[in-house]
């Protein structure tokens, strides 16, 4: 995607960018490190905000989507994540990787949603719209047992493969660790920071998650 405010590697003056001294003006947003782009964003350079969205919209959306398995909801949670991150950009601590910070907030948003959903299920003994005992039973089984929820047509196409379905069966904590480690490529230490979990717990979750995935997938292949 091309950004209209970035021309030939030089940012055009847009009123905000013009407030930045010429020596500090971003020369090449696409080639800059995350830390540098964040510094430009802190200085009020709007294209730097857009560059952070461009870099992370797909990885953040993918993580959240695989956590909640609902496209519209994932989009809302991803949007909420970016708004929180970008409005709090001045509180970002550069000793941490920017990617760790944004994935931490995205994962928290997804986990909070899954917990709220589980509470709704447990407290009402079925989904809120359930009227009859049969409906209550059907919806509580659907949402409360850790089984996959039904997918719409697009999600079924995108998340319907054996490996995606196996990931969906993992408990959320394992799923987050597996996705951050093996899909996004973060180190155990980074995941430990992101999820506020001891390093040993992260390793345990990842090993157990991989074991469960192998069992699910072997069942499919037999």
């Amino acid at each position, binding site marked *: 995607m091309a950004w209209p405010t970035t021309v030939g590697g030089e940012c055009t003056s847009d009123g*905000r960018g013009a*407030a*930045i001294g010429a020596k500090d003006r971003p020369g090449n947003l696409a080639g800059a490190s995350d830390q540098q782009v964040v510094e430009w964003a*802190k*200085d*009020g350079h*709007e294209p730097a*905000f*857009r560059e952070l*969205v*461009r870099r992370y*919209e*797909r*990885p953040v*959306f*993918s993580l959240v*989507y695989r956590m909640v398995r609902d496209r519209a909801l*994932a*989009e809302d949670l*991803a*949007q909420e994540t*970016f*708004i929180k991150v*970008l*409005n709090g*950009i*001045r509180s970002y601590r550069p000793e941490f990787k920017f990617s760790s910070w944004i994935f931490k907030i995205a994962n928290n948003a997804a986990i909070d949603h899954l917990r709220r959903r589980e509470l709704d299920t447990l407290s009402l003994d079925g989904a809120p719209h359930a009227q009859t005992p049969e409906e209550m039973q059907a919806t509580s089984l659907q949402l409360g047992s850790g089984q996959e929820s039904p997918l719409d047509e697009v999600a079924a196409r*995108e998340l319907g493969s054996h*490996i*995606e379905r196996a990931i969906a069966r993992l408990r959320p904590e394992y799923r987050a660790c*597996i996705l951050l480690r*093996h*899909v996004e490529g973060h180190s155990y230490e980074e995941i430990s920071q992101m999820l506020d979990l001891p390093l040993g717990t992260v*390793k345990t979750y990842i*090993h157990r998650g*991989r074991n469960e*995935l*192998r069992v699910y*997938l072997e069942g499919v292949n037999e």
Partner: protein
Amino acid sequence: MVEPLRNPHLTPDEIELWAQGLLGAARVMHLADCGECLTAAERERKLLRDLVQLPRFGPEFGFAERVMAHVRVPTPSGDFGR
């Protein structure tokens, strides 16, 4: 079965390293003699490959605009431009 002390089975961490091509040669040698570890390691490598190859999904068109509509861009003086 008791493992030979000088050539124990690979740990899960070592299997992950092997699957990534990062395990030291001395430990890789174990796989030549141990069918059990080799089977486990090959299963692990296939799983990791499947995970790495998962596609990245994108949000609907206009996502950045929807985000930026809610973002307050700071000015150099420290307050917010909007």
